[in-house]
C-alpha cells in the first residue's frame, strides 16, 4: 500500500514543490493548509477588490495551494489551528516580549504546531509522515539513528528553526527540498506548471504582516502588563524614558530616542524594573550564554560532558566555535572560543557540528566577561 504523507502547504512555491515531488515519487499525498493567524486583517467591505488580500493564511494563498493540489491531483484541505496557534505560539510571543526577551515564533510554531499538533492530525488521517517545504535534510545513519543536516543550499538553510526535532519526529518527517537550491525549486515548479512558481518570498512573521511587533504586542496585552521605564547607562544614569520594554531587543541600535554623541545599543533589558540598559558597541561583547529548554536531536550525545560545537545565536548569524555542557535540567552553558557578539535573550541558539544539527535551546542570558568568573 502507498505510504500516506500529510504535506503542510502555505501556498508558497516551496511547499508546493515539496508536495508535487512526493506525489511524483508515488506517495499518497494529502495537502493541508493551516489557518493560524489570530487576526485576519479583514478589510472594510468598501475596500478596493485588489486590496482585499492578506499576506499569510489568506484566501489567495490557500487558493494557490488548492490549485497546486488540483494540478498534481491530490486531496487538499484547509484546517483551522487558530486556537492552538494562539495558545501555543502567539501568547508565548507576547509574553516573551513583555518579559524583555525577543522570541522566535517560527521555532515555536515548528515545535508546537507543525511537528506536534499537525502530527496528531496526520495520525488521525492515517498518514505515515508529515512533510514540509523546509530547506533542511534528514538522513538515517547505519546505526538507524536519524540525523538533521543543513540544507544543500546554504543561503536558504532553515535547519536553525528545526532544532527541536528529536529522533521520534525525524523518523516520520520528510523535507523533500533539502538537497535542492531555490533556483532548482522554482525551475521544478515551472516545469510542473505550478501556479506558485514565481510567487515572491514571504519575509515577515506570518501573524504580524506589517512587521510592527510592538503594536501587535500592545493589542494583545492588558495595558497593565506593559513595562514602561527608563533607558539607563551601565552605571545606572537615566538617559531617556520609554513606553515599554517590549519595544526593545538586546543588540538593537535604532529607536533609542537619545541624542548622544556616541552610538548606543541595547545591552540588557530588566523587565521587572522597566530598565533598558544602553551602552556603546563594545559593552555588548559576550563570552558565552546560558540556554534553557535545551533539546538534542539525539540524546545520546549529551552523555559525554563537554562538547565542541559551533553555535548559531540568530538565524542570520554565522555559527561560532564554542564548547557546551548540558545539565540534567536541560540547561546548557555555552562558551565561545573567541569574544562573541551581542546575545539576545529569547532567541534560539542552535548547536551544529559541521553540517549536522546537534540540538538547541532558548537563550536565557549572556555570559559577559565579568560574569564569567
Amino acid at each position, binding site marked *: 500500500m502507498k505510504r500516506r504523507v500529510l504535506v503542510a502547504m502555505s501556498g508558497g512555491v516551496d511547499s508546493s514543490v515539496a508536495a508535487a515531488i512526493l506525489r511524483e515519487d508515488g506517495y499518497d499525498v494529502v495537502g493541508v493548509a493551516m*489557518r493560524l493567524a489570530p487576526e485576519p486583517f479583514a478589510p472594510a467591505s468598501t475596500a478596493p477588490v485588489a486590496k482585499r488580500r492578506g499576506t499569510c493564511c489568506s*484566501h489567495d494563498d490557500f487558493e494557490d495551494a488548492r490549485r497546486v493540489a488540483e494540478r498534481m491531483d491530490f486531496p487538499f*484541505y484547509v*484546517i*483551522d489551528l487558530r486556537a*492552538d496557534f494562539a495558545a501555543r505560539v502567539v501568547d508565548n510571543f507576547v509574553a516573551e516580549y513583555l518579559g524583555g526577551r525577543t522570541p522566535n515564533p517560527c521555532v515555536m510554531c515548528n515545535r508546537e504546531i507543525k511537528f506536534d499538533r499537525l502530527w496528531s*492530525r496526520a*495520525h*488521525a488521517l*492515517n498518514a505515515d509522515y508529515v512533510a514540509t517545504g523546509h530547506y533542511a535534510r534528514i538522513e538515517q545513519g547505519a546505526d538507524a539513528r536519524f540525523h538533521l543536516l543543513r540544507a544543500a543550499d546554504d543561503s536558504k538553510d532553515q535547519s536553525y528553526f528545526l532544532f527541536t526535532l528529536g529522533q521520534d519526529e525525524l523518523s516520520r518527517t520528510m523535507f523533500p527540498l533539502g538537497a535542492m537550491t531555490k533556483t532548482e525549486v522554482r525551475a521544478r515548479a515551472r516545469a510542473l506548471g505550478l501556479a506558485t512558481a514565481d510567487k515572491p518570498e514571504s519575509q515577515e512573521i506570518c501573524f504580524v504582516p506589517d512587521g510592527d511587533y510592538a503594536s501587535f504586542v500592545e493589542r494583545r496585552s492588558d495595558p497593565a502588563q506593559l513595562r514602561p521605564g527608563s533607558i539607563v547607562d551601565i552605571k545606572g544614569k537615566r538617559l531617556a524614558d520609554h513606553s515599554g520594554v517590549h519595544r526593545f531587543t538586546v543588540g538593537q541600535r535604532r529607536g533609542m530616542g537619545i541624542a548622544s554623541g556616541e552610538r548606543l545599543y541595547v545591552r540588557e533589558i530588566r523587565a521587572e524594573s522597566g530598565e533598558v540598559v544602553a551602552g556603546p558597541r563594545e559593552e555588548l561583547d559576550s563570552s558565552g550564554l546560558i540556554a534553557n529548554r535545551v533539546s538534542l536531536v539525539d540524546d545520546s550525545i549529551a552523555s559525554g560532558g563537554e562538547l565542541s560545537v559551533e553555535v548559531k545565536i540568530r538565524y542570520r548569524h554565522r555559527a561560532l566555535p564554542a564548547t557546551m555542557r548540558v545539565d540534567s535540567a536541560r540547561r546548557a552553558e555555552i562558551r565561545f572560543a573567541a569574544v562573541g557578539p551581542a546575545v539576545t535573550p529569547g532567541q534560539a541558539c542552535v548547536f551544529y557540528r559541521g553540517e549536522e544539527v546537534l540540538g538547541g535551546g532558548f537563550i536565557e542570558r549572556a555570559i559577559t566577561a565579568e560574569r564569567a568568573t
Partner: protein
Amino acid sequence: MLEAARAQVALVVGAEARQMVFTSGGTESNNLAIFGAITAASRRRKIISSEIEHSSILAPLAELERRGFEVVRVAPDSDGRIDPARVLATLNSDTALVTLGLANSEVGTIQDLAPLASVCSATGALFHIDAAQAVGRIPVDVAALGCDLMTLSGHKLGAPGGVGALYVRDAARIAPIVFGGPHEAGMRAGTPNLLGAVAFGAATEAAMNAMRDESDRIGSLARSLLKRLGETIPGLRLNGPLTGGLPNTLSLTFPSVLGESMLIALDLEGVEVSMGSACAAGAVEPSHVLRAMGRSIADARSSLRISLGWNNTADEIDAVAETIPAVWRRVADAEPLSEVSAR
C-alpha cells in the same frame, strides 16, 4: 421553453407561473426578497428573522443593520424550532418584513410557519419564506403557508448551480434590485439563464414525482444509519428533532473529536459529510445554528451533518455505517479533543 420551465417550477409550490421570478439561485432570491421588500416599504425600519437562517439571509440582514435598520433575530429552542408566538410578539406596524426558513439546512428542523401569515398581513409586513431546503423533500404550498414571497433553489433539487426562483404573490409589492431591462416582468433585469431554467424545471418535476417514495426510502435509510451509529458510538447525540425533521438530514455530535478532523478523515475514505459553514478559504467555522440551539462551541466543533440524497443506496448506507465508527475511533484515539482545540 422558459415559460414551460416556469410553469414546472411554479407547480411544485402550488403557485401560478406568472408569480415566479427566475434568479441566479437561492442567494439572489433571498437578497431580492429582503432588499426588494425594505425598498418597497419605504418607511418601515424593522425586519424579523431568526438566529438559525442561512448566510444568504443573515448577511443581508447584517448589512441592513449596518445601514440603520432594526433587525430582530428570534432564538430557536434546543431542537431548532422557532416558536411562532415569539415572532408575533415582536411584530409591529414598523415591521417591513418577516423572513424565516421553512426547513433548516443544518439540522433539518421543519418550522410551523402557517400561523404567521394572517398577522403579518394584518400589520402590513411582507412575509418571506426561504424554502430552498424544503422544496422537493416535503410538500410545500404557498397558499397553505400564506406567504408573500418564497425562495427556491435549483441546485438543491439537482439542477446545475446558477438558477433559482422567487415566488411573489400577486398582491405583494417589492422593488427590483437588479436594473437594466424588462426581463422577468421588470423584477430581475438581465437575459434569463435559459439552460439553467429548463434544467430547474425538469429537476423540479422529477423531484415532485418521486418525492413521496423517495422521502420514505431516504427517511428509512437515515433512521437505520442513525440507529446503527448510536449502537457503535457511545455518547453520539442527534441535533434536531427525532421526528418531524427533513427525512434526509442528520446532524450528529461525535464525542471527544474535532468534527473538522473527522470530516477530512471521512472524505479521504470517500464519505462526504459537512460541518458548519466553510469560510472563503475553506476552513470550517462552528455552526451558528448549533450555537443558537444552545450547544457549546466544543459540541458545535464536534458536530457533522450527514445528508442523504436520491442517489444513495442501501448498500452505501451499510458501508458508511461501518466506516464512520471506525474513523471516529481512530480520530478520537489520535487526536482527542483538547480544551484548546475546542475553543
